[in-house]
């Protein structure tokens, strides 16, 4: 759909047709005392050159440059983006496409979304995936609300304390104005979630775990979903690093009823924390309770295959206050980017890349342990892990920063009591030389 701004002549024609003489006339029914009549306090526009200089100035203030190797994940991951991806996703047909309300003129977009849904459903091991939520955090909140809708009379949900702190904060924001309660499950010493308290629960609609969790630890989703189903609750499995499923069993195949998480790793740069991609899927029997857009495959009057938005009666523009969510959009360009990424790598590529991430992370983990740092959690990890340093790590971290390496995330601000514990992430972007530099600085 083209965007063409109106000329003054176009505007005059429209004004004449509706019988107004200028813009002020259109707002004439707004009372005088409700109008803002002062000048807006906005800076003057800049020329293209001035703007470039201004942005370069901001960039120069950043401590971390694109030349740094960032050994932090914590929900946002450094991955190589194949050149084919930006070349393809920046095509104007994809980048500027509007949301596909009219199937007759949006078949390209709809087909792209349908293929994304198919790839996502296969990756996550679910029957059906939607056209995406905004990000992993809001996706988790929506998954829990979906659990409440399915659970009907139940009023409580449980979330693991090992879920990303920001995801848990977003869940709290969503649940605060409701009558429903969110309880937090504690951790075991090995870094996995302690599910023992579930045995005494009978009013939980859904229980959410993240795997790999915030500490990089792989949760035993099969055991968890069994324990959760035993108390007649739904198992929500969330993630922040979907690459893990190149190596780990899909959450769906482990018994999860709803799977949701962040898809940024699949072809999107970290970008200061946004935009995100809320990958979301569930069992077929819950599809009518699922939030978000859903693209379906059908045939037209002539029997030709076509794609449409389907099950629209769940959505807020039709169902209103009883809708599955207030979302009436999706992360279109991110969705297509992720589809391109998944299609480019394929199953074998994802497997190899996941293996590489895992192996490199193990290399750094072992190297740090040999210097005397303690691995905080004994359970298996994917491409992130937590180590505890004997003394103050900050001087070594500062030296590494000067050498272009961002060495880990201090956890104490998120988990009081985790003094000297750092969360490291190693992806395919960290070379052996970089890792050896980190190990030798720590050893000093």
């Amino acid at each position, binding site marked *: 759909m083209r965007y063409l701004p109106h000329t003054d002549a176009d505007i005059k024609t429209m004004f004449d047709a509706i019988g107004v003489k200028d813009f002020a006339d259109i707002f004439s029914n707004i009372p005088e005392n409700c109008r803002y009549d002062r000048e807006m306090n906005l800076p003057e526009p800049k020329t293209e050159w001035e703007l470039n200089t201004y942005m370069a100035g901001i960039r120069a203030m950043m401590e971390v440059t694109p030349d740094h190797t960032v050994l932090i994940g914590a929900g946002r991951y450094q991955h190589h983006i194949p050149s084919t991806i930006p070349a393809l996703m920046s095509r104007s047909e994809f980048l500027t496409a509007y949301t596909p309300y009219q199937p007759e003129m949006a078949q390209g977009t709809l087909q792209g979304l349908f293929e994304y849904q198919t790839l996502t459903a296969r990756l996550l091991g679910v029957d059906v995936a939607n056209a995406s939520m905004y990000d992993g955090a809001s996706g988790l909140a929506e998954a829990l609300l979906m659990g409440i809708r399915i659970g009907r009379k139940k009023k409580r949900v449980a979330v693991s304390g090992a879920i990303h702190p920001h995801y848990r904060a977003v869940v709290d924001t969503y649940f605060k104005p409701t009558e429903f309660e969110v309880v937090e499950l504690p951790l075991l010493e090995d870094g996995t979630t302690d599910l023992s308290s579930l045995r005494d629960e009978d009013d939980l609609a859904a229980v959410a775990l993240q795997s790999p969790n915030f500490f990089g630890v792989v949760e035993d989703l099969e055991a968890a979903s069994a324990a959760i189903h035993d108390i007649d609750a739904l198992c929500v499995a969330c993630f922040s690093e979907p690459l893990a499923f190149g190596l780990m069993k899909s959450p769906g195949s482990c018994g999860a009823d709803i799977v949701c998480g962040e898809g940024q790793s699949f072809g999107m740069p970290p970008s200061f924390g946004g935009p995100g991609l809320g990958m979301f899927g569930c069992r077929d029997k819950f599809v*009518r309770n699922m939030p978000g857009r859903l693209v379906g495959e059908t045939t037209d009057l002539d029997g030709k295959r076509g794609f449409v938005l389907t099950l629209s*009666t*769940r959505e807020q523009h*039709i*169902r209103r206050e*009883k809708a599955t969510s207030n979302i009436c959009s999706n992360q279109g360009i991110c969705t297509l980017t992720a589809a391109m990424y998944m299609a480019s790598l394929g199953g074998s590529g994802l497997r190899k890349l996941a293996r590489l991430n895992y192996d490199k992370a193990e290399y750094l983990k072992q190297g740090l342990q040999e210097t005397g740092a303690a691995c905080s959690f004994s359970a298996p990890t994917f491409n992130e892990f937590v180590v505890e340093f004997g003394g103050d790590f900050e001087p070594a971290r500062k030296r590494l920063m000067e050498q272009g390496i961002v060495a880990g995330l201090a956890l104490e601000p998120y988990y009081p009591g985790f003094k000297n514990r750092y969360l490291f992430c190693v992806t395919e972007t960290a070379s052996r030389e970089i890792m050896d530099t980190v190990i030798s600085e720590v050893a000093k």
Partner: protein
Amino acid sequence: MKDIQELNLPADIRYSNDHEWAKLEGDTVKVGISDYAQDALGDIVFVELPEVGDTLGAGDEFGTLESVKAVSELYLPIGGEIVAVNSELEDSPELINQDPYGGWIIEIKPDDSGDIDKLLDREAYLELLKAE
């Protein structure tokens, strides 16, 4: 959409303001939606049914009907315990469109069997439709 004269409105059952019908069969009451309602909704694609054993009051929501263009709540015309649901509707929701009176939705044991007489008879329901 059908004209009022074209609508099938049996005389031996009662109707509610929400376009449901109720029919006494022994000591239970079957509930469904009227020909007017199924015509207005369009092709029904999914029926959400309550659980057998639930006890609800008059006016309580007991399920939903999803058509291609809307989802409509179903309201219990008289209070009672749900003793049966029409499970055929799970696979064949279109039964309601094809035969709105044979295609019953739920069967209840009414709290008070006299409640059904408080509902509209055919004439009163026709008056309601004419006013719509």
